[in-house]
C-alpha cells in the first residue's frame, strides 16, 4: 500500500507495528463484561477485573472483596472484608444478575432481615478509584450478545445463567431456579461464580422449605467456602426456617 504522505511512508517500519498491535481478547472481554455489569460493586466486574497484572498480587483479597460485594447486595449483612482495602466506590442500588430474590411473601415466611445494598463497598480495583463516583448505576445488566455469543465470555454466560436462576426465584418459581442452577453446575464445573451459585442453591432450598436439604447444602458450602461472607446470612436464613 502506497502512502501519499512521505513522512508516513518513511516511518512505516515503526508506525506499522504499532498499528498492528493487538489487544488481549481476554482483557477485552473483561472490560466489556465489567462495563456491562457496572463494575462498581458488581461481582462480575470485580472478578472480571482481577486479571490485571497489578491486581494479581492482591488476588486473594480481591476474591473476598468481590464476594462481599456480590453477597452484600444480595440482601444479607455481609461482614466487611478484614483486609484494609483503600478505594471506596458506591455500590449499585441493584444488581440484576446477583440481586437476591425478595418476594414479599418469602421475606415474611422466613422473617429474614432484608438489608439494603451497602452504601459503599471497598474495592481494590484501582481503575475504579478515579472513576466518576457521582452516579452509581441504578440497574446493571449483562447484554444478551455477551451472554449468548458462542465461545464468548464464559463469565458473562455464568452471570447470565445465575441471573436466570435468581429471576426464577424472584418470581417464586423455586423449581425453575433449581433446574437453572443444575444447568449452571453442568455447564460450569469450576465456574468463577461457583460460590454465588452455591449460595443461591441454598436460597432455593430455603424458599422450598426443605430444611434438611438447606442444611445439607449449607454444610457443603461451609466446607467449600469457609471464609465466605455469605455464611452469616445463610446461617440466619436456615435458623429462621421452621423445624
Amino acid at each position, binding site marked *: 500500500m502506497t502512502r501519499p504522505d512521505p*513522512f*508516513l511512508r518513511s*516511518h512505516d*517500519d*515503526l*508506525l*506499522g*507495528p*504499532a*498499528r*498492528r*498491535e*493487538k*489487544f*488481549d*481478547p481476554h*482483557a*477485552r472481554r*473483561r*472490560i*466489556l463484561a*465489567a*462495563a*456491562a455489569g*457496572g*463494575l*462498581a460493586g458488581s461481582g462480575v466486574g470485580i472478578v472480571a*477485573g482481577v486479571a*490485571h*497484572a*497489578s491486581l494479581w498480587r492482591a488476588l486473594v483479597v480481591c476474591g473476598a472483596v468481590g464476594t462481599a460485594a456480590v453477597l452484600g447486595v444480595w440482601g444479607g449483612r455481609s461482614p466487611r472484608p478484614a483486609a484494609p482495602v483503600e478505594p471506596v466506590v458506591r455500590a449499585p442500588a441493584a444488581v440484576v444478575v446477583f440481586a437476591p430474590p425478595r418476594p414479599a411473601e418469602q421475606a415474611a415466611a422466613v422473617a429474614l432481615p432484608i438489608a439494603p445494598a451497602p452504601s459503599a463497598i471497598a474495592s481494590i*480495583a*484501582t*481503575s*475504579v478509584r*478515579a*472513576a*466518576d463516583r457521582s*452516579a452509581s*448505576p441504578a*440497574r*446493571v*445488566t449483562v*447484554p*444478551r*450478545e*455477551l451472554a449468548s455469543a458462542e465461545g464468548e465470555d464464559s463469565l458473562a454466560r455464568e452471570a447470565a445463567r445465575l441471573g436466570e436462576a435468581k429471576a426464577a426465584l424472584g418470581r417464586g418459581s423455586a423449581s425453575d431456579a433449581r433446574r437453572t442452577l443444575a444447568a449452571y453446575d453442568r455447564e460450569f464445573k469450576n465456574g468463577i461464580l461457583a460460590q454465588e451459585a452455591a449460595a443461591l442453591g441454598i436460597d432455593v432450598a430455603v424458599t422450598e422449605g426443605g430444611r434438611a436439604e438447606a442444611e445439607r447444602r449449607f454444610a457443603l458450602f461451609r466446607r467449600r467456602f469457609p471464609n465466605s461472607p455469605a455464611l452469616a446470612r445463610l446461617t440466619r436464613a436456615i435458623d429462621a426456617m421452621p423445624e
Partner: protein
Amino acid sequence: MTSSLAGRADTTVTTSATAVLERELEALFRFARRMGLDAADAEDALQEVALVFMRRHASLEESKVRAFLFGVLYKVATRMRDRRRKLREVGEESALLVEDPHGDPEEQLAERRARQLLDTILDAMPDDQRAVFVLCDIEECTMADVAIQLEMPAGTVASRLRRAREVFESARRRLDPKYGRGLS
C-alpha cells in the same frame, strides 16, 4: 408492564453502549499504549474509561461519543503514566501483550522492538503533541476528527502535528542508527 418495558429499555441502552465500546476498544488500546502505558496499565485505563462511558453514554450525542472516549482516555492515560513514573514502576513489559502463537517469532520480535523504539521516540514529545501524532499518524484519523476528539481547534492540531513530526524525525535520527544510515 411498565417496569418490564423499562427493563427492556435499560438492556437496549446498555447493549448499544457496550457495542460502541467494543467497536472502539482496539483503537483505544493502541492509543493508551502509545501514550506510554504498558499493556496491563492500558487495560486498567480502558476499564476506567469504560466505567465513565457507561455512566455518561446516555447523555452523549452519538457524534461526540468517540471524542468523549479518546478525551477521557487521554486524561486517564497521562495521569496513570505520570503516577507510575513517580512510583518508578515503569519499564516492566507486560505478559499481557498478545502475539500470534502461529506467527513467525523473528518477525514478532522485530515488531516488538519497533514498538519499543517507537515508544522511546514518542517519550521525547510533550503529551499534547504526542496525542495528536498518535491519532493522526498511527491511528490515521483525519485532523478534523482529531480536533473533535481532543477538543481543540483544527489549526492547533495541524501545528502540533508539524512540531511532533519534527521531534519524531530528530529523535529517530538520534536513537535509530539504521534509520540515519538509510537516509544518508
